[in-house]
């Protein structure tokens, strides 16, 4: 099936014109990776990558000719057709899978879940509630006690367990150490998947530039921070082009900016037209997960207490919940919200959690507090957020 790349040229132009060169060029490289380019075009892209890396590492001032060339190629590439992947299909489905550990007396209660191509599923929950167990089971890294997991990885009927597992990428929280130069690991990952010669050079260099890793390519594992290790691991996984990507706490080692970029990257990966993949990941960063995930699973004490998309599940719509940070006392807040039915105000870790009937909008709560002359330094509407489950604990 032929289609057009999944991006807007105007978006790239906008970023470049506004001086956000990094974002603009990254989007441009996404275009390149999505498009079937000729060898000459790939060489041109590699040349632009070289210039970009030199400038980014030194002056951060790009010549207009470089920017014009990027824009011109973006336009040119956007007009090209590409072979899109097949329509969305189920990649993995687990039916009533469970697992118990004798040591620790923990049991992950039966849970069912299904992930389609292009879908992002986030697993949230407090520590020790079974997130890693669930991820490892879905990655076929840990055996299940009960239930069944079926994979539809599109590698033929005579697929062996090994071939099946080759199409699943599991990135644990503690990424196994790489040996040798980081760049060599990426070349090796690509060539071991049948990407040879110039294509190998092209993909690895574009990937390094795309993920902002070019500066570190000749270093060794022990010479980079854990955040960069996660990014390098992501680069390796992208070269392997798995059908199913499973990440355990990928945001744990990233700073706030890197978290945003990382989440956007994996969302782009999942939604890629050419190589879409199913992504399952766990995180403690609830708000960030909710921003990108299509589907959320909330685990508590080994039990799934929420397993649905955010928009469609009515379980979240039971009440209005607001999180604020203020110097005011609980009594002052209660006074400001006087008259609202089913009101509860609870202090939790430096913030107040305000619950009330569903008919009152969260913004109304904020208005009433501000109207009472109280100072609010932080506000968030949790009505549609799974964070409500954390607060209930």
């Amino acid at each position, binding site marked *: 099936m032929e289609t057009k790349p999944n991006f807007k040229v105007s978006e790239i132009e906008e970023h470049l014109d506004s001086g956000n060169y990094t974002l603009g060029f990254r989007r441009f490289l996404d275009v390149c990776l999505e498009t079937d380019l000729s060898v000459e075009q790939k060489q041109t892209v590699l040349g632009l990558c070289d210039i970009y890396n030199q400038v980014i590492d030194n002056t951060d001032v790009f010549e207009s000719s470089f920017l014009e060339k990027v824009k011109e190629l973006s336009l040119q590439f956007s007009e090209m057709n590409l072979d899109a992947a097949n329509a969305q299909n189920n990649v993995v489905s687990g039916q009533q899978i469970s697992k118990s550990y004798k040591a620790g007396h923990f049991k992950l209660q039966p849970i069912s879940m299904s992930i389609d191509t292009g879908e992002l599923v986030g697993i949230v929950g407090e520590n020790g509630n079974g997130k890693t167990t669930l991820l490892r089971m879905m990655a076929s890294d840990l055996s299940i006690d009960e239930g069944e997991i079926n994979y539809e990885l599109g590698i033929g009927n005579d697929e*062996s367990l090994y071939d099946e597992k080759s199409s699943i990428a599991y990135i644990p929280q503690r990424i196994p150490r790489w040996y040798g*130069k980081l760049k060599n690991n990426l070349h090796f*990952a690509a*060539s071991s998947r049948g990407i040879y010669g110039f294509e190998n050079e092209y993909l690895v260099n574009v990937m390094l530039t795309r993920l902002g890793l070019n500066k570190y390519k000749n270093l060794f594992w022990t010479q980079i921070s854990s955040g960069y290790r996660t990014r390098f691991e992501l680069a390796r996984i992208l070269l392997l082009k798995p059908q199913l990507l499973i990440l355990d706490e990928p945001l744990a080692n990233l700073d706030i900016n890197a978290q945003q970029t990382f989440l956007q990257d994996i969302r782009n990966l999942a939604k890629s037209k050419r190589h879409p993949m199913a992504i399952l990941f766990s995180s403690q960063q609830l708000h960030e997960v909710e921003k990108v995930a299509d589907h959320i699973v909330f685990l508590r004490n080994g039990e799934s207490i929420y397993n649905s998309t955010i928009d469609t599940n009515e379980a979240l719509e039971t009440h209005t919940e607001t999180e604020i940070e203020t110097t005011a006392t609980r009594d002052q807040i209660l006074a400001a919200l006087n008259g609202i039915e089913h009101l509860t105000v609870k202090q939790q870790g430096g913030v107040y959690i305000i619950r009330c009937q569903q008919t009152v909008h969260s913004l109304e709560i904020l208005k009433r507090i501000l109207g009472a002359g109280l100072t609010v330094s932080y506000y968030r509407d949790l009505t549609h957020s799974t964070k409500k489950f954390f607060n209930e604990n």
Partner: protein
Amino acid sequence: MNLQRFVPDFIKRLDHYLLTHYPIIWQSRIHNVFYAVVLTNLLLGGLAMLLPVNIGHRYELWEWTWTFFVVAVTYLVIWMIHVGRFNIFKLYGKRPIGDEYINFVLHMLSVVMIASTMFSFHYVYDQKIRNIVSNAELAQDINTLNLGAPFFPNQESYYSKYKADGSADADNGLYLYNYHNFDRFGNQRFWTNLENDGLDNSYYRGYEATEEQIMDTTIVQEVTDPCTQSKFGLNCYDENKKLFNQKKSPQEQLELITNFIKTAKKYGVSINIYPNKVLSRFNKTENYKFNLDNGEVYNFFDINYKIENSVGYVISSKTDRVIFYDPDFWHVMWYLCFNLALLFMIYRNVRRRDFILSVVSGIVIMVVSGIILALTRMNSENEIFGFYFMIYLGLVAGASAILFKRSHSWLNAACLNLVAVSTPFMPLFYYEFNHHHYDRAMTTNWEIAGFVIFFLLLQVFFKKLYTTLWALPEK
């Protein structure tokens, strides 16, 4: 440790080419091994070329070989760490058809190349020692020593002792060599009756023979005829002496002695006596009339011993067979390299914990089976083989169960590893336990059969089980 800094650009370029084109070759690091081994062998060969060789010194080259064994082991460890760490299987890389064969062959070649560093110094130094004296020169020297040998007896009293009771031979003390092939004439002494020794005396020369005569066996035979007509050596001595005195002038005799002394010096043996003194004493033995002056000695035991050793070392360095041409050497090397490659294949195909537990399991099985054999008093070879064969079948069953398992188990992994280790040797094991007489040809056939069976199973059986084992989830 970053070893890349020691690698030249062309190897780096090759490395990158293999990395991006032939990952299966790249990950074996055979190109790095090749470079390191060539460089090391050149260095060790150069060292062997630089080290002086002293004529007449006996060199124990195996001592050097064991010294460089350390180098080979170091290389082996470094290589294994590098290859073992960068493991394609652990990253769930694709496994193309035939990859297990390619891996095995590449690893075998790497081990063979690394092992060669043990022998490069040995080989070059051995060649240097062999050529310290050319064959023609050595033949000439032996000729000269043989010609002069009668003038330098071990102990003059032997002559008189023999004269008295006939119990001892007149012994010049110096072993003689066949200068054509450098074989020593056993216990043959120059003055000994040729007939009694039963040696092929075609090349055996009387002391008066010239080099030209030596080349002509007819002349030699003619010259030695007077001996053969005598009963014992002393007669021979007499006859030869008479003949010698007829044919050689004193000047010629003196020249033979001088040449002997010069040649001995060349082989590291100094003879601090004037040639005319030697001749004078030699002449006093005529008709066994030892009229040596008081304090005068005619005894060259030490000198003869040294010359004999010195020439012997040079000759043995030329005639001893180099170990590299010995099939037994390659037999040992094959086993060494094969087993290392086999162990390495197993290590790379399983988790580290499984590998360690397999080693422990192997030891436990050996100990327990030994105890069972002792307790049950099974002592016939058929019974012992049957017992071990049952264990082997049990291991095969345990390994095959991997295909039907839902989760990974170290026990199955241990069974598989032990089957992989024992399969190449099972046919030989069977043959040795069922045939009581040693037949080298048959043993070799059964050995080869074991390796063939292993290689046939490598791709279709072992790879299938190892990849499945890798992919099974943890319990």
